[in-house]
């Protein structure tokens, strides 16, 4: 299967690979997927006092599309408010990376990772957890 140029670019030059201190109160961590499925994404956000995401990091075990989806997600998250981040839809990722139908699950996983990281942040800061969509994975 041929990958799009954007997927290849994110794969070769992944943005924001790394780890934030998950013990910190202003860091939200989302860990989604499962090793048996061949996809695990960990996405982390760091939020300032104005509810703005100042940093985002990821690590992904998965195919090129999964790596690219999470790399793109971290790019999009930086600078957004937590509420704005919630509006990132997996189909935006599909479109941006030109993912073929068999790789749509990678974008779904990235969206799950974003929501899961935001929820972790919310719960840590005394906010109610948002209802997570049933994992499509």
């Amino acid at each position, binding site marked *: *299967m041929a*990958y799009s140029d954007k997927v*290849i670019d994110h*794969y070769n030059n*992944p943005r924001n*690979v790394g*780890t934030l201190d998950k013990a910190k109160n202003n860091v939200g961590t989302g*860990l*989604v*997927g*499962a*090793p*048996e*499925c*061949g*996809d*695990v*994404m*960990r996405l982390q956000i760091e939020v300032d006092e104005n509810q703005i995401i100042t940093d985002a990091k*990821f*690590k*992904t*075990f*998965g*195919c*090129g599309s*999964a*790596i690219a989806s999470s790399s793109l997600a971290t790019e999009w998250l930086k600078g957004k408010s937590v509420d704005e981040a919630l509006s990132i839809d997996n189909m935006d990722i599909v479109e941006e990376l030109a993912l073929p139908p*068999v*790789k749509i*699950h990678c974008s779904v996983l990235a969206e*799950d990772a974003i929501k899961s990281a935001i929820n972790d942040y919310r719960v840590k800061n005394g906010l109610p957890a948002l209802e997570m969509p049933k*994992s499509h*994975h």
Partner: protein
Amino acid sequence: MLTFPIYLDNNATTPMDPRVLEAMMPYFTSKFGNAASRNHAFGWHAEEAVDYAREQIAALINCSPKEIIFTSGATESDNLAIKGVFEMYASKGNHIITATTEHKAVLDTCKHIEKIGGKVTYLPVNAEGLIDLKQLEESITDKTILISIMYGNNEVGVIQPIREISAIAKKHGVLFFTDATQAVGKIPVDVEADGIDLMAFSGHKMYGPKGIGALYVRRKNPRVKVTAQMDGGGHERGMRSGTLNVTGIVGLGKACEICKQDMAADTARLSAMRDRLERELLTIEESYVNGSREHRLPHVSNISFKYVEGEGLMMGVKDIAVSSGSACTSASLEPSYVLKALGLSDDLAHSSLRFGLSRFTTEEEIDFAINHVKEAVAKLREMSPLWEMFKEGIDLNSIEWAEH
């Protein structure tokens, strides 16, 4: 001089040997006759070429030229052998024994047999990829007509105990068929010494052309017959109709001749290179060879690199062409059924790469592949959350992963 990508997927297909192409060329143009045309020189030339190819093939596997039935490839040979025996020996029984690590061409044919009233036993394999001979013997009933066990596995290269299997088959009066697609031309395969009754193989796995294969069908002790699966002109002793693919047959014949002549030298060189590749790649932390290393084809190595995903890894090793046990593109997300049959967990199966060397593989290419894979694994582990957890001493089984 290296040219990229470097081809190390020779279990999928091999490049054609230039000597094979040269032998085939005249049969496309000047000697284009139909081997079944009995009344002119065009037909005679074609028939002579086919007869000669049968001898070249027979010499490689130690059979009579009359025992070779030409087909379009190993998939057709598998179908013809299994369905053909099932129909021909229907009065004797309806039970077939095979193994879970067989090629899809065998497994799906067996599924078809089950749909039309047959019974099939699928033997499991151990962690080495080998069947249990005792279990095989115990599975035989008075209805068993065929044992179908492959010679060498396409994904891990494991060689089954063919002589022991055939001895059990013979003892119980059951026919023994083997899909030897990966073995013929690579290791000594001798239908007499190995006690094989039917055997499938194809041209393009041994430096011959695609679209040509053969089914060996024993004529003596016992005389085996298969029911044709295609109706037509009654070619190939009535077992496989259709105008003979003369160019392909000439190519298969030449490929067999070269394999016979070069086998000892090829095997020595290939296994040394494969062993070096494997030794080097096993210096990577948390990497494992899949399947028996003792009972194995000389040119194959299947290795899992834990905590990196195979498809992602393949993208990282874009300068070499290999295949992976991961199947992230399939709707099911199911990794290789062969690796799972060996008892690998899904995550290890997802982390595997298969290397298949060929007669044309060079030491320089292996050097490159070693470094390329090492770098890619290191890079991907750097971005793998599983690797980070492993390094922190977290047991991945203790984590509650999302349902899928």
